[in-house]
C-alpha cells in the first residue's frame, strides 16, 4: 500500500518536473522579476545600509538618540500602538457584523472599508484636520467637553486609526466566512452559553487573523506621513512623528541624520514583517 503510494508520488513528481518544461517563460519572467527587484529595491536599500555603515558609531548613536528624535519614536510607536488597538477591537466588530448580520446598505459599507487604502493620504489628512479642528463638524462638539484633537497627540492617533482601518477587517473577514457554524453548534449542544462559545471557540479561531491584521495596521501606521502632518501640527517634542523628522532633516541636507533615523525605521519595518510571517507560519502549523 505505502509502496504503491510512494510510486504514485514519484510518478507525480516526475510528471511535475516534466510540466515545468512544458510551460515556457521561466527564464524570461524570473530574469525580469529579479532584475527589476534588484534595480528598484536591493540596490537602493543596500545603498542606505552602506551609507549608514560608513558613519561612525558615535555619529549614528548621536543622531538616533537625540531627545527630540526619542520623543518622536515615543509618539510614532505609541500612537501607532493605540491606533492599531482601536482597529483591533472595532475591526473585529465590523468584520463580525459584515459577515454574520444582514442590514440595509451592507454591500456599500463593505466596499467603503477599503477607502483609507485607496484615498491619497494628503486628502485624508486635510479632511481629518478640517473635521476635528475646533470649528469643524466633529471638533466643535468635542471642544464643549474640553477635548482637543487637531494639533495634539490625540490627532495623530485619529489619523493613524483612519489609515489602519481596512487591515484588521480584511484579514478577519475571510477567516470568519470560512468558519463552520457546526463548531459553534457543537459547543452549544455541549451546554456552552453563547458568550462561552464566542470566547472559547470563535475567538481562538480568529486569533491568528486578528494578530496579522494588528501587525499590518501597526506597520502601516509607524511609517505613515501624509495623513498625520496636517492634523498633528508638528510641534517639536510634542506632536512630531519620526517620518516628519526624516523629511525635515533631508530638507536641511542633513542626510546622515536622516539616514540614521531612516535605518531605525527600516529595522522596525523589517522586524514587523518577520513578526507577520512568523504569525502566518504559526497559523499554518496549527493547521487552521
Amino acid at each position, binding site marked *: 500500500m505505502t509502496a504503491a503510494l510512494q510510486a504514485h508520488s514519484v510518478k507525480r513528481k516526475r510528471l511535475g518536473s516534466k510540466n515545468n518544461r512544458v510551460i515556457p517563460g521561466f527564464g524570461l519572467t524570473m530574469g525580469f522579476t529579479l532584475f*527589476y527587484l534588484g534595480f528598484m*529595491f536591493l540596490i537602493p536599500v543596500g545603498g*542606505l545600509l552602506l551609507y549608514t555603515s560608513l558613519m561612525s558609531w558615535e555619529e549614528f548613536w548621536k543622531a538616533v538618540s537625540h531627545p527630540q528624535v526619542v520623543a518622536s519614536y515615543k509618539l510614532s510607536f505609541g500612537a501607532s500602538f493605540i491606533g492599531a488597538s482601536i482597529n483591533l477591537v*472595532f475591526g473585529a466588530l465590523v468584520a463580525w457584523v459584515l459577515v454574520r448580520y444582514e442590514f440595509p446598505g451592507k454591500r456599500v459599507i463593505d466596499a467603503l472599508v477599503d477607502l483609507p487604502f485607496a*484615498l491619497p493620504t*494628503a486628502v485624508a489628512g486635510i479632511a*481629518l484636520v478640517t*473635521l476635528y479642528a475646533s470649528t469643524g463638524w466633529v471638533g466643535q462638539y468635542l471642544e464643549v467637553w474640553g477635548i482637543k484633537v487637531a494639533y495634539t497627540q490625540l490627532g495623530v492617533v485619529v489619523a493613524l486609526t483612519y489609515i489602519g482601518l481596512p487591515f484588521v477587517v480584511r484579514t478577519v473577514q475571510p477567516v470568519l466566512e470560512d468558519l463552520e457554524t457546526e463548531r459553534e453548534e457543537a459547543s452549544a449542544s455541549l451546554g456552552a452559553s453563547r458568550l462561552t462559545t464566542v470566547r472559547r471557540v470563535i475567538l481562538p479561531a480568529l486569533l491568528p487573523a486578528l494578530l496579522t491584521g494588528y501587525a499590518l495596521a501597526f506597520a502601516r501606521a509607524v511609517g505613515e506621513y501624509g495623513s498625520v502632518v496636517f492634523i498633528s501640527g508638528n510641534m517639536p517634542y510634542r506632536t512630531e512623528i519620526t517620518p*516628519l523628522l526624516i523629511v525635515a532633516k533631508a530638507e536641511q541636507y542633513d*542626510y546622515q541624520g536622516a539616514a540614521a533615523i531612516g535605518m531605525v525605521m527600516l529595522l522596525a519595518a523589517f522586524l514587523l514583517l518577520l513578526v507577520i510571517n512568523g504569525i502566518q507560519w504559526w497559523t499554518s502549523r496549527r493547521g487552521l
Partner: protein
Amino acid sequence: MTTQTLGNVANPALAARWRRATSEPDWLRWTLIGISLSFLALFLILPLLVVLYGAFEQGLAVWAAAITEPDALAAIRLSLFVVAIVVPINVVFGVAAAWAIAKFEFRGKSILITLIDMPFAISPVVVGLIFVILFGTQGWLGPWLAAHDLRIIFAVPGIVIVIAFGTMPFIARELIPLMQQQGKEEEEASLTLGAGGWKTFWYVTLPNIKWGLIYGIILCNARALGEFGAVAVVSGRIRGETNTMPLHIEVLYNEYMFTAAFAVSSLLMGLALVTVAIKSVVEWQTERSRRCADTP
C-alpha cells in the same frame, strides 16, 4: 439553516434555549450593528462628506476654476504623466513575477514574495530619502549627474522612480494568489495542443486573470496618483514643474486656499471611490465564476 430546522422541530422552550446558545438576541445584534456603523460613519463617511462640502461649498464655478487654474492643471498633467510611465512598468513586473511564482517551483520562492511585499512595509519617507542619498546633489551620484547635466532629484525622473518603487507590490500581490489558485492545467492543455507561449498567455492566461489585473491596475493607479511622503522628499515642490496633485493640495492648504485644496482633493477622492467600487465588482465576478465552476 441547521439552527432553524432544529428550532422548529423541538418544543418552544428548547428551541428558545438553542437559539440563545447559537446566536445573539436581536437587541445585541442591532447594538453591535449600530456601534459598527457609527464607527464607520465617523471614520469613513464624514471625511468623504467634508471633502465634498469643502469642494462645492462655493458653487460649481469656483470648483471648476480651482481645478482649471494653471498650477492645478500642471499638477494634474504631471501626475497623469507619471502614472502613464509607472503603471505599465508595474503591469509588466506584476505579470512576470506572478507567472514565475505561480507556474514554477523553485527554491527561495517565499523570500521572493516577501521581497516583493517589502516596499509596502517601508515608510514612504524612507523610500524618498534613499533616492535622495543616491541621486541628490549632496548624494553619492550627485557630482557625476551634475557633470553630465542630469537631474533626478527635484525633477520628474526622481518622482517617477519613487512612485514606481512605492507601487511595485500592488499588481503582483493581486495576481500571485489568483494565478496560484488557477494552477497551470489550462496553459498545459493549450501548449500540448500546439499553441505557442505568447499565444497561450494571450488567449488562456489573460482572460483568466482579467478581473484581478483590472483591479490591480486601478489600485496601482490610485496609489500612484496619491503617493505623498516619498514624493514630498524628492520633488522639491517647484510650482508648475514638480508638484504632483497631492503636493499641490498640500501647498494650497498651507496657503489657506481651502476651497481650491478640497476641489483638487475631490478629483482624487472620486478616483478612490471608483477604485473601491471596481474592487467589489471584481469580487462579485470571481465569486460568480467560482459558483459557475462549482455547479456541474
